[in-house]
């Protein structure tokens, strides 16, 4: 059986593990990213490559050392560098003497034919029929959707939890339940069970959490190791977070279609051009959050990420025009947890004071949760 692996991005590895196993391969599950993974990546990556590049390279090195023979990953259309990462990783790893196959899937809309050819090769290697493959995809998709849903649910509950850390613990036991579920039926059952588990966490509904939107680059947004568990940290400070990107929603709007048009429309007065990656989205989504009455926006960007640098230089103007505080955090291999936490605490304090001032001015308390 061929040993197949993939990159680690948030909790999606559960979905991809199932996908690969159901196709009849042996899955080499990438280990949770650790400082050692990052060190491996940093050693062999170009200095100014962004942190996702280094992290993924480190992950590949780890799975190749565990015996992976084939890697499946996603490509891109540019002008963000991520579209070339498949090629670069292959070049660097071959130069280091590793022997393996890599399949880079570009978004199907950019080249339906090459997408189909590659897919056919993968399916042929797997030795399953197209019909079976469709079923495999549908189940993996259901699982990924469930993971996104649970994550969203958990971030909504965390600020209300009575005992600190309850939600995170429950969420991790939910992940175990989801991992066991394989068929559509089991996934539906797991969904019910996990929702109940999360809903039954003791809560103090008298609190009035702040609402913060998180925009930025997909990898640092999705991978908790990379963003130093920003959603957990903020949640425990009493903030409801909303991420602009969830994997399944992103796949549906940006990979399989032409992107979220409403968000791009909003960004137009400030950035009237697609700049690759999530640059234009970050601007548009910050505006969307402002319009929906969020208290603040946090931008997460990997150091040297080109589209996010463009967005970062424009966000202060959005912040001024819409009266919404924006905090830009740049993440690289030197980023420390304490530094990020201090900045988040200061930001949350600022948002609290701002709300109090606004309430004092309007002589009325804003409704809980708003």
């Amino acid at each position, binding site marked *: 059986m061929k040993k197949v692996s993939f990159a680690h991005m948030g909790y999606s590895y559960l979905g991809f593990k199932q996908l690969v196993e159901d196709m009849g391969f042996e899955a080499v599950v990438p280990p949770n990213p650790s400082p050692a993974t990052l060190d491996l990546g940093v050693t062999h990556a*170009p*200095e*100014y*490559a*962004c942190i996702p*590049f280094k992290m993924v390279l480190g992950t590949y090195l780890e799975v190749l050392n565990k015996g992976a023979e084939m890697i499946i990953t996603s*490509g891109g259309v*540019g*002008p*963000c*560098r991520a*579209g*070339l990462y*498949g*090629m*670069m990783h*292959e*070049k*660097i790893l071959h*130069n280091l003497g590793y022997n393996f196959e890599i399949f880079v899937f570009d978004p199907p809309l950019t080249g339906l034919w090459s997408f189909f050819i590659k897919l056919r090769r993968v399916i042929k290697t797997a030795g399953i029929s197209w019909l079976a493959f469709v079923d495999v995809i549908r189940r993996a998709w259901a699982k990924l959707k469930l993971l996104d849903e649970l994550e969203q649910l958990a971030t909504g509950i965390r600020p209300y939890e009575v005992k600190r850390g309850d939600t995170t613990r429950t969420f991790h036991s939910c992940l175990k339940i989801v991992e066991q579920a394989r068929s559509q039926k089991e996934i539906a059952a797991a969904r019910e069970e996990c929702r109940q588990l999360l809903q039954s966490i003791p809560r103090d509904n008298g609190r009035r959490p702040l609402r913060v939107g998180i925009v930025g680059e997909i990898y640092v947004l999705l991978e908790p190791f990379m963003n130093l568990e920003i959603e957990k940290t903020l949640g425990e400070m009493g903030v409801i977070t909303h991420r602009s990107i969830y994997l399944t929603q992103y796949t549906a709007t940006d990979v399989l279609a032409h992107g979220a048009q409403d968000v791009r429309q909003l960004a137009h007065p*400030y*950035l*009237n*051009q*697609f*700049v*690759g*990656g999530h*640059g234009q989205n970050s601007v548009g989504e910050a505006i969307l959050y402002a319009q929906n009455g969020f208290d603040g926006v946090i931008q997460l*960007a990997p*150091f*040297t*990420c*080109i*589209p996010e*640098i*463009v967005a*970062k*230089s*424009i966000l*202060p*103007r959005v912040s001024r025009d819409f009266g919404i505080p924006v905090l830009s955090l*740049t993440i690289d291999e030197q980023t420390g947890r304490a530094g990020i936490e201090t900045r988040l605490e200061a930001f949350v304090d600022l948002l609290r004071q701002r709300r109090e001032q606004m309430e004092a001015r309007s002589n009325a308390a804003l409704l809980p949760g708003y």
Partner: protein
Amino acid sequence: MASHIGFPTALFYYSHYPFWLAFFNRLGIEVVTSPKTTKAILDDGSREAVADACIPIKLYHGHVLTLKDKVDAIFIPRMVKINRRTTFCPKFLGLPDMVRASLPHLPPIIDLQVDASRGLLGFWPTCRGLADLLGRTRREAWSAYLEGRHHHHAYQKLLQAGYLPLQAMAKLRGETVDAPARTPGSLNLAVLGYPYQVYDQYISLDIIGKLKKLQVNIWTMEMINPARLYRLSGRLPKRLFWHYSNLVLGAAYYYLRQENIDGIIHVTAFGCGPDAMVDKIMELDIRKFSRGQIPFMSVSIDEQTGDAGITTRLEAFIDMLHQKRRGNR
């Protein structure tokens, strides 16, 4: 209407200035360029621009600032595509928006898009838009466009004849410029990098001048036909997305094939996104294709890079090439 238009001497200045100069002049508009880069200009730019940007972008902000009070409008075209195959670095794509968001109290910015992926006429749609904006007729715009193209071709011809961009522009202005001379027997060095990084004397720490003083024959990517560079850089399994990167990489492959080249230097800016890829590919492929025979040095420059440090590195590299030559004989 705008009779003085500002053109910052940074980024695409080195590739397209002759075209725009001729175009605007033909329409009776004076083009005001910013002065040569100085420390003050770079410092102003670094202060105003977003901290993570690369030096060329910060420098561009600085040059825009010097033009602020002198002109009726500043011309910052949005360079999207100048051929069908590639686009520009995202920082070029968002350039007018970045400048507008970072710098307060600017004169109007003309930020028409340059997108030559449709149609055969390159800059013409942009020129047509400019004419509409400036209140000129299509006919005037067309003749100005032709004039611009004429100048651009003349400029390209000079570049391919071996003139460096600033010399070629001087020659186009009618100044007397020494014809490029090569000393037989000296070292031949390919100096590759984005034109806005290599030819800006301040942010490149005058690498070209320093090498000339060391009596080295310099070869650059502008000396080769861009179409040829594109063919060569197309050998990668996936073409790079960015126009200038394709040229640099193509030039690296081109000079690898030339027998007389002794070494290759890549000049890059700190924090340059595309170069993180280009530099690594160059490093790996130069070693692979020349079987380790052609020395390669990558010079990365930021605001803090010292003049003496660069001089030492260049001298050491040249010494090494001399030794290698003697050893081979």
